[in-house]
């Protein structure tokens, strides 16, 4: 073992190892490189101390910064809520009808309303708000059971239909299977089907179902079947049939009526959120002024 020395030919130091007169040159790693390496280790140690790094028996041990991904999410949500704050107060600052008139407000309300709709309304009414035949009404057409003005829509969303909310929209169609004979129901069904057929305009009054209709149905559905939004009584003289088109479907509905219900959202959303939803639904094509 020779002591380290400087190699005269190359100018490098040797390691001090020697085998049969052959010495090994050493090219040490530069100091700066070693320093950086040690610094990265130091950073790792600091990181372990600051951030949650170790598992405990009941969960992870929080780091010195008390950072959690849940806390991060809450912070992000709070930041998003803060960013939306001015918009939400702007929506609340004007009457609901004017939210649509302001292009910027409208864009914000429709974009937010769409996200809210997909989370809360789409399960029944569909992602495209097309409803479901025989179950849930379409919100994109021009037919509204309880009103298609934006304020009607807001009211429906807030308190719902036929639920426990004391302000809920409510009405009941009697079970005519108990009160009318089978023949009368068939007659009135023929009459109801004819309401939306322009070809029957002349002969309709003479139909046997006309009297039955006048006595039992016209109070809610109107003398010519134009419906009443006050009671959520559907229009019968149009082409839209939620519970089915044609004589059989009408007989079924008169005999054993089906009526939709919708939950109240008053407890779940604040007023600004409901306004955004209402603006979105109103923008889908059927909104009335």
């Amino acid at each position, binding site marked *: 073992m020779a002591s380290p020395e400087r190699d005269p030919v190359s100018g490098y130091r040797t390691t001090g190892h020697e085998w049969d007169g052959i010495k090994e040159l050493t090219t040490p790693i530069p100091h700066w490189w070693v320093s950086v390496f040690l610094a990265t280790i130091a950073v790792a140690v600091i990181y372990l101390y600051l951030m949650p790094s170790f598992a405990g028996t009941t969960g992870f041990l929080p780091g010195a910064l008390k950072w959690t991904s849940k806390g991060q999410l809450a912070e992000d949500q709070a930041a998003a809520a803060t960013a939306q704050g001015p918009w939400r107060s702007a929506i609340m600052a004007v009457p609901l009808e004017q939210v649509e008139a302001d292009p910027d407000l409208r864009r914000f309300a429709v974009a937010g309303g769409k996200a809210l709709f997909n989370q809360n309304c789409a399960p029944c009414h569909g992602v495209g708000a097309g409803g479901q035949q025989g179950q849930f009404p379409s919100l994109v057409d021009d037919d509204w059971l309880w009103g298609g003005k934006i304020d009607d829509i807001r009211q429906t969303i807030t308190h719902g239909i036929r639920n426990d909310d004391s302000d809920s929209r409510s009405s009941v169609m009697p079970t005519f299977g108990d009160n009318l004979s089978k023949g009368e129901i068939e007659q009135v069904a023929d009459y109801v089907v004819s309401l939306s057929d322009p070809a029957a305009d002349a002969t309709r009054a003479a139909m046997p179902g006309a009297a039955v209709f006048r006595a039992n149905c016209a109070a809610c559905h109107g003398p010519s079947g134009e419906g009443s939004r006050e009671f959520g009584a559907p229009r019968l003289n*149009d082409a839209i049939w939620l519970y089915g088109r044609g004589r059989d479907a009408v007989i079924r509905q008169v005999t054993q009526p089906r009526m939709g219900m919708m939950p109240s959202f008053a407890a779940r959303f604040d007023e600004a959120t409901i306004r955004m939803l209402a603006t979105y639904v109103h923008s889908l094509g059927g909104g009335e002024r």
Partner: protein
Amino acid sequence: MSAAAPARGRAARRRPVPLPVKGRYRRIKTLVGLGLIGLFFAVPWLRFDRGLDQPGQAVMFDVPGRRLLVFGLEFWPQDLPLVLGLMILGALGLFLATAISGRLWCGFTCPQTVWTDLFFAMDRLADRIAGKGRGGAKVIRQVFWTGLSLLTGIGFAAYFTDVTALPGALLSGRASAGTVFAILLLTATTWLLAGFARERVCLHMCPWPRFQAALLDADSLVVTYQAWRGEPRGKKRLALKPELAPDSSPAPGAATRGDCVDCERCFAVCPTGVDIREGLQMGCIGCGLCIDACDDVMAKLERPAGLIRFDSEANQASPALVRPKARVIRPKTIFFAAGCLVVVGLLGFGLSTIQRVTIDLTPQRNPPFVALSDGSIRNDYQIRLSHRLPALAAVAVSVEGLPGAKLRIGDRDDARFTVNQDRSADDRLMITVPRGTPVEGRREITVQFSDASTGRVLRRIDSYFWGPE
């Protein structure tokens, strides 16, 4: 590579600043360098009127708007293929220049070279002011370095923000954090690369010298020491060797020399510190300053210039005092030139066919159609538009292939929509056909979008209309 590479181990010493030199290549280098630096600082000041609410700067990277403005053109991120074409053109141009005459780019136009040259000049100026080797020179050097770096940083930031407002914003402290960061970053990198690292960037960091040898051939003009003429080197008092001075008759047996008197001027003026007499090497950036230095010496010795000159390897086989013509047109240069032309053609095609209006028409498939209470059938479509035309306020929509169709957009009954301030639009198109129209199943339609004020057709989009089956 040089066998006596001085940089080894920790003991490597810093070369002194290269000596100044006068001559043809020095003049070219100065003019090109000043021109490029001037261009770098001047371009942001060019103005171009794009109308109200639009930046008036001719060339500008609008980062918040995600676009690049170049006079009347506007580029969006999706135009990236054009940048790719530009890069391919740059690479092919570099290959072509290298095949013809070596590292012209490195020697004269590379920003690293230009700025390094400037900083060398500043160092020499600092030495002149304070006296070489004095402590004061170091201070003045640092003042120059930092000042120039800061100027470079501000010049760079001027490409990203309105340059006319930049000085005021900086002085009053109203500049955005991004601007300040860009300036500080470029100041730091300029100080580091042009002030501190200099030619070491070319020698150790830049990949280009590593593969330039693959592009050179025997016909490329590169800085060449005419060894046949210069060797053996010797003191001036020795007689010239007989090949160079046929008339003289030196004493038999007396030592003779070639044209090189070993004055080392070529080495002293080299910005990268190579000794060109050792032959073409990776460190040589082909700037030709050693040619100027050597020609100067040859003139003093009353010998013909060109001991070091731009010359080809092929010419070394038949030595001549006056350089024979080099073969510029040869398969390699033709190939690269043709490549450049092809890419220029493709770029021109890409530029001329760039889409200035983008319109998407998406049929709403949930529900596929809407039955209305009067028996008519409605289809809904989402319209998304973005444009980069000088002016487009409103767009009119019409439909073909659907007789009796009524169009609505949003809650408006006229078939037109306005374009937002940010030159985009997002609206709902509703097409309704009256009861009795035969629209069972799918029906092909064409929707036409045109500028509402001029009537110019912007786009025709094929789509479809669904009815109950």
